[in-house]
């Protein structure tokens, strides 16, 4: 994987900035806690099934505790969020769209849910010439549906609209 060194430093206050815990320390601590909890759960496993997970998870919890400590000693300046979007509501909105998309996929079928999700995502991210892109989403959705459902035979969730389109496409295919 590409290396991106963060520089050199060993400031005593490296891991925290003005009383705030840095994300790298917090993440390490969360992972350590997660591993520790999972380690404890292995005690409920049958004895013959306990050894390997106990070792893996136990060592993992210790290592992540050390990771949190090492991150605290690392360079004082965490990577600056040059895009200034650490808490960008549009990024949150983008995530919400795509997490809800599978739910909508099952509920309202592929064509409608995909067209809505693609349009919403493009508009939210403020693509230039949004009208062109949103209008373009419609044929793209049908094209992707044809590719996945008819050409590649992937069983997609379907409503009557999807079924009608699929029947039409199968008819064209002959």
């Amino acid at each position, binding site marked *: 994987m590409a290396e991106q060194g963060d520089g050199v430093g060993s400031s005593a206050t490296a891991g925290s900035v003005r009383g705030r815990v840095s994300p790298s320390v917090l*993440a390490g601590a969360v*992972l350590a806690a997660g591993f520790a909890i999972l380690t404890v759960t292995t005690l409920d496993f049958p004895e013959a099934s306990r050894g390997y997970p106990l070792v893996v998870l136990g060592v993992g919890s210790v290592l992540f505790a050390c990771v949190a400590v090492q991150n605290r000693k690392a360079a004082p300046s965490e990577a600056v969020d040059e895009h200034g979007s650490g808490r960008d509501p549009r990024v949150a909105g983008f995530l919400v769209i*795509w997490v809800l998309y*599978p739910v909508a*996929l099952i509920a309202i079928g592929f064509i409608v849910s995909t067209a809505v999700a693609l349009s919403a995502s493009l508009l939210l991210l403020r693509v230039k010439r949004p009208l062109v892109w949103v209008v373009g989403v419609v044929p793209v959705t049908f094209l992707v549906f044809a590719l996945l459902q008819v050409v590649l035979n992937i069983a997609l969730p379907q409503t009557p609209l999807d079924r009608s389109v699929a029947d039409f496409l199968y008819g064209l295919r002959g």
Partner: protein
Amino acid sequence: MDSALLDGLLLALQPINLLAAVVGVLLGVVFGAIPGLTATLGVALLVPVTFVLEPATGMIMLTGVYAGAIYAGAITAILLRIPGTPASIPTTWDGYPLTQQGKPRLALGSAALASGIGGLVSGIALLTLSPLLAGLALSFGAVEYVALVLFGLIVVVFLLEGSLLHSCAGVLVGVGLGLVGLDPAQGFARYSFGQFELTAGLGVVPVLIGAFCITEAVRLARTSRTTYRPGGSVSMTPGRRVPSLRELRSNGWNLTRSSAIGVGLGILPAVGPETTPFISYAAARRFSKRKDLYGKGSLEGLMAAESSNNANVGGSLIPTLALGIPGSAVAAVFLGALTLQGLRPGPLLFVEQPVLVYAIFSGFMLVNLFMLIGGILFVRQFAVVLRLPHAALATAVAFFSVIGAFAIGSNIFNVWVMFGAGVLTALLLAARIPLAPVVLGLILGPLLETNLVRALAASQGDWTVFLQRPISLTILLVALCVVVFVCVGRVRRRLADPQKVTEPAPH
């Protein structure tokens, strides 16, 4: 073997497989040319598509994506001094100066030629070394596999630059993810939380899509506002497209050495195409008679970097196919694709499916040939992909990630696994844990546990069996040598420069 080789070649030459090779290369060029998209992302996104294709067709397409993406990073590296993929960082050092000298076509053509040659050399290595390695591995038992897996995990921890602690922790995350599912010893369902789907374990492909694709979609969404735009249009001043015969002859040894470095390092886990070009560039400079040109538009340096990163592609497929142990993160995704097809990567694949194996090898050679020709003739057209806005890319990557995860078994559960993996990856990146060890731990963890259980059952709990078997002992001793070598190197560097602190590699 001869008939399997011929049958495999004929299978690869079928029109559908030739089309798959071309499509794969084109898609790979898209992923490689656009900064921010990577070969791993491209291969991971397309794995679900291969699920519905014939195995040979799907695998050939994936090799096309892999090879095309690694090559295409050179396009923006040369034209804009922005590496399209991490593997093209050294390409910027001499590629961009050549563009500034009014020789973009020569730089791009040389990169395509070198990439193609590196890829073809690695294809020959793949064709010759894989069967030998697979033949050797047929005599491996559970004991040898435990040693081999441990070797792979140790190599990925110790050869990856950055903090050993962070790499070790990453491996344990991957191995920990492999604990989900039925215990190989007792059949006890671990961490299934009452979900039937989890008794079979976490699907490798949805996890990889979540780790590499969804996180990239979010990153692209974050940068959609401050999208980098290439300054003005990309101009291609007229000029020759390829090096002259004299230049090629003078680079013969350079290309051979760089390709050999790429193949050799590709066989090792963790030393992927991102690391290899730095080493081959340094080697080329060391042996060069024109060191003064390096960093100022040296064709030699450019070709050294490009031939080695594409040679690494074939090299990384050697242990992937012959042993079932991936030689890079992308190869790990490739391995996931094979598993999805119901195939067992490893020596038995050569016994049970020899025609398929040789079709993949032949397809890989064809892919590199198409890439070489396409890179020389159509690079101006390839550069068009640079105009795609990040907002559209983010949307497309998110969409295909969700649909890709869903398409595996038409199961919505895999989509949630994918999102869960995305959240975990975000945590790991925040904690500065590199992803390569996580991926290898995920792939190799179940292999380790299964073979460990078998080995200890056969030896009745005697752990010294790993030291009693000669192959196992040899592998473990080699691993120990790697550990000692790396540790000594780190201590020497620290003593030479006490101010430098080893920082964790974030990705």
